[in-house]
């Protein structure tokens, strides 16, 4: 993926270099060739429609190539593959907190195995940050109050810089870390030493502790909608709208339950805003996502990557 970005970059570089050379050469050449000489007045030329059109249309066509190629890359870059391994990220001034689905928690360092797609599901506890790994050519702002998503496919073992790329206060330049890409067997070894609880299991426990299970039963008798198999499917709301049940929908449903009321249900769910931390919220979301899915914490069906504003 990074190679594709570089290929496009080099293409633009070459075209730009040619254009720059052309303009520089013409300016210098004209400046010298048409230097004021006695007896040789300037020749007045009003213009040329043909030329104006030519040098509007041709650059525009070239621009459209830039646009199209860039858009194609961007499409891929904004849509994580559905089989990506997921890492929940909470950014705060001035550190990165990661939690793998298997339960491992890391601060400022993210270990991943080579060759497996990784989808970062990110939110901020305070101000806007930005998750930037130059080596992977990816960047995504991390916002408070919602999830944003980035993904990458590591191809080479190594340690790569992670930078915060959205100015976030005093230690913005200190909010850095690394992504450590390991050979699969090294990664397994690293993952094995720790004995942490998978994120979805943490979520399951919370689901029970917080009383969610009393209304959200796995049958049709509950006062709340059945959440099994919900994730990734469209949901019909009581005002007739249909929305996709993605991560942001789940998050909003927990924090602002009356924002979107499911058709056929009453708005009786209490809000959990202020009562659970971002990490607990991530665990709940991970749990609900896992309901009705094949037992593979690394998988998660997802539709749109994040609900977004125009």
């Amino acid at each position, binding site marked *: 993926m990074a190679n*594709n970005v570089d290929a496009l970059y080099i293409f633009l570089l070459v075209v730009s270099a040619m254009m720059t050379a052309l303009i520089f050469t013409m*300016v210098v050449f004209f*400046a010298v060739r*048409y230097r004021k000489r006695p007896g040789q*007045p300037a020749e007045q030329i009003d213009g*040329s429609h043909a030329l104006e059109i030519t040098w509007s249309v041709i650059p525009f066509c070239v621009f459209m190539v830039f646009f199209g190629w860039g858009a194609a890359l961007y499409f891929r870059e904004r849509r994580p593959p559905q089989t990506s391994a997921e890492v929940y990220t909470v950014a705060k001034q001035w550190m990165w907190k990661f939690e793998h689905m298997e339960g491992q928690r890391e601060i400022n360092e993210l270990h991943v195995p080579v060759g497996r797609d990784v989808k970062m599901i990110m939110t901020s506890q305070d101000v806007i940050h930005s998750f930037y790994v130059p080596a992977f050519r990816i960047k995504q702002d991390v916002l408070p109050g919602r999830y944003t998503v980035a993904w990458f496919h590591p191809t080479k073992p190594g340690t790569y810089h992670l930078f915060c790329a959205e100015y976030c206060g005093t230690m*913005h330049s200190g909010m850095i870390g690394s992504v450590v890409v390991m050979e699969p067997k090294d990664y397994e070894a690293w993952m094995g030493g720790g004995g942490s609880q998978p994120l979805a299991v943490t979520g399951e426990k919370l689901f029970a502790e917080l009383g969610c299970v009393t209304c959200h039963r796995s049958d049709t008798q509950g006062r709340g909608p059945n959440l099994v198999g919900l994730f990734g499917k469209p949901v019909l709301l009581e005002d007739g709208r249909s929305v996709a049940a993605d991560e942001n929908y789940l998050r909003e449903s927990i924090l602002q339950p009356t924002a979107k009321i499911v058709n056929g249900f009453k708005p009786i769910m209490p809000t959990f805003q202020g009562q659970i931390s971002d990490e607990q919220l991530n665990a709940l979301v991970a749990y609900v996502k896992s309901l009705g899915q094949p037992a593979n914490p690394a998988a998660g069906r997802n539709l749109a990557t994040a609900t977004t504003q125009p």
Partner: protein
Amino acid sequence: MATAVLETGERETYLNREYGIKSWLLTVDHKRIALLYLMGITFFFFVGGFFALLIRLELLTPAGDLVQADTYNKLFTMHGQVMIFFFLIPAVPAVLGNFLIPIMIGAKDLAFPRINLLSWYLYIIGGILMVYTILNGGVDTGWTFYTPLSTEFLKTNVVTAALAVFVSGFSSILTGLNFIVTTHRMRAPGMTWNRLPLFVWAHYATSIIQVLGTPVVAIAIVLVALERVLHLGIFNPALGGDPLLFQHLFWFYSHPAVYIMILPGMGIISEIVCCFSRKRVFGYKAMALALLGIAVVGFLVWAHHMFVAGISLYAALIFSFLSYFVAVPSAIKVFNWTSTMYKGSITYQTPMLYAFGFIGLFTIGGLTGLFLACLGIDVHVTDTYFVVAHFHYIMVGGMVMAYLGGMHFWWPKISGRMYPEGWGRLAALLVFVGFNLTFFPQFILGYMGMPRRYWDYSHSPEFQILNVLSTAGATILAVGYLLPMIYFLWSMRYGKPAPDNPWNATGLEWMIPSPPTTYNFEEQPVVTWEAYNYDEVDKRREEVPVAH
């Protein structure tokens, strides 16, 4: 032609007509107001430049060892705010535009001279607020004021900085309003739209942007200030608000703002290139339409600053597509300037050297804009030094060079003195070399991944060498900027008295004395010739070597 003569025997001009501080602070003469602005923007240019120097000194070494992190954050914030709102936006319109537009169209003054003075006072009040902000501990929001950082998480002078920007914004709006009405209603007989100098067209297009765009950032800033003071939640997700709403409102102005900054410069370049090539501009209509096109399309592209901010995929596609549209009229202008030189009769006085520099550097700046408009690349380079290099190429390599070129070109008219040509050329060269050395390495730094607004980069010592080059360039650039300041001041006392038309240029401003009288024209001119009629001008006069 009767010229008034003072008791001292000097010819009466707008400068010596009245002395005393009241005659300046209560003037309604557009030329005096232009000079009042000149003092303000020069002051702020050096304040902003001083901050830049400190930034570059800090970045000489990877560690944050010159100033503290908070101080550094204040430095880049205030560098941006001062340079953008108190230098770049007013510089050409309020100094050269104010001085020249009435004269160029054959009028005695702008349509609303008192509002012009009010604009200056608003600028000064905004400036005082900015100076207060700086002296009272500074502000560190970044010039972009993103929420919720600026509303909830900082303890610095956010409100006074916001007010400074707000008040100076009204200065900008009133100047734009004045120029639009002036251009519509004050043209002398025979000065049709098709005969207007491109300098006037450029300011007309700029004024449209000023008038339509500035109010939106004004309200965005007011809401930020209110939110901060009253703990509202309009932009704060913790209270149900949306930080992206602020970004949209902010960039809706701030993108067109960059065209406010560059269009007047383009107007200057057209005047200079025509004069020193002794030719009409190639494609007058296309040039005028391109100015208007940039102004209009410039309003449609703001969210290209937000490709990774969390906007929808489809919004990003639309804004990327539209951003390529706005590049086309800019490209047309570069081609047309170059074509104007073709078969010209070119000389290399200082203004023309700045024009050469502008064409080259604006080309590079504009081309790198194409990289940023490209979604796939922008994801990697946005928020890095690539963007910093891009906008400095346009703003400094483009706009500041155009401003300096214009100041040199019209200095004889404004002051009645010639600047020393040798020093002028030296300064132009230093500026060009220093500029490229400062900012070209930053493109590379950006692609390597160095984020912007970083106080310390000790985790990536590989960034150092390029930073050192950049700082070296900045010191050369600083010398290049100091020189004109010194020799312009010197010339006011010791410079050679300037003739009415030292460049044998076309345009009404060159048909009146240097410096002009207060009311510009003895009688209202009646225009019967087309713009840039260099063939007629050169045929009429004998081949007199232009003053070197």
